[in-house]
């Protein structure tokens, strides 16, 4: 394992981005929120839209894949499990770090865990608890990989045995199901401040289904990247199966979204300034990939699968930004939010941290099956 030139360039570039973001976070913690564009009209900005809403939505791959492999017994997906587990765990950890920088009192991040402060009538209470729990579950699910590296055979045979893994996976599906939908539930409290094109009583369901659509999309994109960078083959037949799953999820999502819009009479809002965002989101982010995936021969093409996946990820990212920021009707017309460089740098740091941790994990841990040594 000699450090190649490209590896050195890649990691040092990431470290530069991280250092820059760390400076942004330092300013946030010393100078204060003056370095951000957040204010009374925009209590939540880029950090919530990207680090939390998007970060969690794009990390739905782990529990979706675990459902396929452990619950409905589609063992063929097993080779995809470890890299997906890793990316999702990293996404959740960076979300937690991002939240600690975002909240007013970072040192009090544990307050919602303290029983005397419990207030379970808040959707955020559920989100907080589920995300914390799920990080622990993911750490346990991930632990056999570390144990394998350390050659603690007894450890991973215990954890990976069906008796431990199946109940763990069941909890590990229910918990993210709850918080993926509850992230949409956060917005239910503001019916007159969120634009009708996005506000809906079924926002939790829409958030959940769109996260499910992002799951295969992220796995397909990550497989493409890792196959190129690590010179591994592309598991095209597996990815095609994922593409088929994605097709049906998108179909359900688009159908529910339009039925909901029509039932609430919100389609009449198409034409106002904000509806441009809505049209781009729904047409490019959801309907275009659905059409791309409909013909069976397209699903078998790696390039079209990748394109459709990129569109879906774009759609989900845009959807989360739209629900939080585009749809936000409360500020007076003059007050427009655009993140400052400090906010962008912190988000960049979180993404770079994920990328760096992934790079190092792939290098030193048995993430991809080919690199697996014993115990295959």
């Amino acid at each position, binding site marked *: 394992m000699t450090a190649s030139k490209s590896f050195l360039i890649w990691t040092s570039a990431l470290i530069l981005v991280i250092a820059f973001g760390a400076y942004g976070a330092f300013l946030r913690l010393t100078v*204060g*929120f003056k370095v951000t564009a957040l204010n009374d009209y925009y209590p939540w900005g880029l950090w919530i839209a990207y680090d939390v809403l998007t970060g969690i939505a794009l990390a739905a791959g782990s529990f979706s894949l675990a459902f396929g492999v452990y619950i409905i*017994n589609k063992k063929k997906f097993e080779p995809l499990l470890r890299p997906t587990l890793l990316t999702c765990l990293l996404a959740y950890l960076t979300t937690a770090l991002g939240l600690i920088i975002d909240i007013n009192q970072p040192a009090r991040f544990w307050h919602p865990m303290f*029983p005397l402060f419990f207030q379970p009538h*808040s959707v955020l209470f559920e989100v907080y608890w589920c995300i914390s729990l799920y990080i622990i579950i993911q750490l346990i699910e991930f632990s056999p990989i570390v144990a394998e590296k350390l050659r603690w055979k007894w450890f991973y045979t215990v954890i990976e045995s069906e008796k431990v893994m199946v109940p763990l996976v069941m909890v590990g599906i229910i918990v993210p199901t709850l918080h993926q939908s509850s992230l949409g*539930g956060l917005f*239910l409290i503001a019916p007159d401040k969120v634009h009708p094109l996005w506000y809906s009583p079924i926002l*939790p369901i829409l958030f959940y289904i769109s996260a499910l659509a992002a799951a295969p999309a992220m796995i397909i994109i990550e497989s493409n990247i890792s196959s190129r960078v690590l010179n591994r083959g592309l598991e095209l037949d597996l990815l095609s199966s994922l593409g088929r799953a994605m097709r049906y999820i998108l179909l359900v999502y688009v159908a529910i979204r339009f039925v909901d819009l029509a039932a609430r009479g919100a389609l009449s809002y198409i034409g106002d300034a904000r509806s441009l965002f809505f049209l781009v989101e729904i047409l490019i982010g959801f309907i275009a990939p659905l059409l791309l995936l409909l013909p069976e021969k397209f699903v078998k093409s790696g390039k079209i699968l990748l394109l459709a996946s990129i569109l879906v990820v774009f759609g989900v990212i845009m959807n989360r930004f739209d629900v939080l920021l585009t749809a936000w009707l409360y500020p007076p017309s003059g007050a427009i939010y655009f993140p400052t460089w400090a906010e962008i740098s912190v988000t960049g740091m979180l993404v770079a941290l994920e990328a760096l941790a992934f790079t190092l994990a792939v290098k030193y841990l048995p993430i991809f099956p080919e690199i697996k040594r014993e115990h295959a």
Partner: protein
Amino acid sequence: MEWKLSRREFLKSTGSFLVSLPLINTFGSYSSSNKNDPDEMYGFLVDVSRCIGCGDCQAACKIKNNLPVSSDLPYERNERSYWDNYSTLSAYTWTRIRSKKLVKDGKEIVRFIKEQCMHCIDPACASVCFVGALYKTPEGPVIYRADRCVGCRYCVYACPWGVPKWQYDKPFPFIQKCNMCYDRVIEGKKPACVEACKVGALTFGKRKELIEEAKRRISKGGYVNYIYGEEEAGGTCVLYISDVPFDELDFRKVMKFSYPELTQAYLGNMPIVIPSLFVGLLGLYLYSRRRQEVKR
């Protein structure tokens, strides 16, 4: 089959989980309003027709709560009209008088509207606060317990009137808002702003009495037949009456039900959703296992 035992265990654990769900509510709640009659809550009535916009209530509030007089935050600087000395509520201005020019009976007139927390009977801000920092007291005021606050700013997002503000000029801000001078109210005194009002535009009392008083004034004539706050957001402890329509005074149109109901309708599904997910997953697992066994 070994799974028979675990199935029983599973049912047992689901059962005990279900039984323990109501227990979680005993840990904490955002409000004691379910135990207390809204009629008995304290609040005050703002009579827009009587207000002369002197600003004594603003000054009294600043003095009582030790708030800086000149502390403009970036968004406070715009759109300041002749009579407004603060253009929005902020972390450092918990109440303010805003002015509105309008035409009544062909004459140009000005009306002054006092803004502050509405002290909802079932407050959205307190319902979303996951550590119970914002809290609806049985006496009526919605108070802020700063020692609990994590600073998620969900209250700022949730309030239909945009009342909770935060110190976004600081590194470790707190939420700030009117607390109806809770310390004075429990001592049996009026809030500072009410006490400062010399023209009788503010009347302090129990919500039921205030509504009676408002109806009495409306019936004597000269008022619009509407009490703003009687039904807004499920009812508020601060009530307004006016001689010009509330629409023309730019009062926010909010829903006429309590906002927390929206999230409770969603969260209330959890005791059904969680066990159903368990049962569904277990069923799918056993089914696919059985199918594989049959295949073999």
